[in-house]
């Protein structure tokens, strides 16, 4: 299918829309949304078979496996009691995955954070820790997930997102916070969002 096309690519977009763009280095969805990650099929290298074992040679395969790994992490964390600023088995495993697999791991996490069936406390914990991460290569993707989570139906997830954004301290998140403040119904959470916005400083 791609024999006569140079550097065909598969891209994963923030809304989870898979797209195929051919012959371009920058893939752009019709709506103008930039992809979370694009992999050139001609240059794709499977991930090494180190633990966890992920990587069946296709981007979709890796994404699916990562989601499965994330689900297992959530399940294992279901009895953990989290404390702000204190590492846990969950936070260590999560950050390890993000460090190894970058944006596609953020995308896999997003699947769970946005799933109403997933444990909201664990999602909120995940959002705190992705805010604390210091990794330039995934910064845009992590910030995207945090901003998106500001509109979660779960107050705990919105609080986790607010904290994650405050930890990243990126003035670019100000617009997202302002919008969230406008619609936030819980008074104390709205105040926490306002404080986070004030501390972000000018954009």
């Amino acid at each position, binding site marked *: 299918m791609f024999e006569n096309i140079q550097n065909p690519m598969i891209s994963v977009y923030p809304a989870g829309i898979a797209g195929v763009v051919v012959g371009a280095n920058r893939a752009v969805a019709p709506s103008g949304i930039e992809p979370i990650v694009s992999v050139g099929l001609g240059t794709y290298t499977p991930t090494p078979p180190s633990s966890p074992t992920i990587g069946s040679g296709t981007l979709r395969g890796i994404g699916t496996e990562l989601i499965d790994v994330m689900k297992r992490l959530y399940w294992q964390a279901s009895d953990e009691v*989290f404390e702000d600023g204190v590492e846990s088995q969950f936070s260590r495993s999560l950050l390890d995955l993000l460090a190894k697999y970058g944006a596609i791991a953020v995308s896999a996490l997003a699947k769970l954070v946005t799933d109403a069936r997933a444990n909201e406390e664990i999602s909120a914990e995940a959002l705190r820790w992705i805010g*604390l991460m210091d990794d330039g290569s995934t910064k845009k993707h992590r910030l995207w997930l945090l901003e998106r989570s500001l509109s979660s139906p779960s107050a705990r997830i919105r*609080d986790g997102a607010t904290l994650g954004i405050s930890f990243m301290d990126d003035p670019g998140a100000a617009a997202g916070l302002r919008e969230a403040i406008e619609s936030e119904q819980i008074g104390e959470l709205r105040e926490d969002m306002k404080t986070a916005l004030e501390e972000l400083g000018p954009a």
Partner: protein
Amino acid sequence: MLLRGIRKSKWYKSPAVPWLPQDELQADALGDLSTSSNILSVWLINEDKSNLEEVVAALASNRNDLTNFDYAVVSLKDVLNAGINVKDVGGETADNHANEHWHRNLEELTVSHLVSLARTIQGSGQIKRVTQKKVALWIRRNIESGQLDSTRIEQRILSKARSVN
């Protein structure tokens, strides 16, 4: 007053938590009152909160990373009226002064005590958040004053405390 570190969102009440009946607490809130050998660690805060910064800096610097610090404070009198045993026992943080003067154990706790404590937090207590930036400033100030022993604090916390504006 007595202070206990908590996670604010566990203490959201109705209607913030739509399924939660009026005047009820989420069960997760009890996770913030987790005991060991039926003992709960708390910290004495002066009525004028003059030692709040010291205690929060001590507790926050005892973690792995620098984040916000959420806490609840309740009246010591309310705790004593609930029949809870409050003992003056040394703490274990990087602040020896706080460890000697402000740490308390709530001892010989029963399930009823914990529920009573949770209700007291819900009813007459105050739940607050200190932001990460403020925590960083407080930790830095207390290191510079010599109150906090930086050798007992994780490097991640130290570097974030140093770099905050």
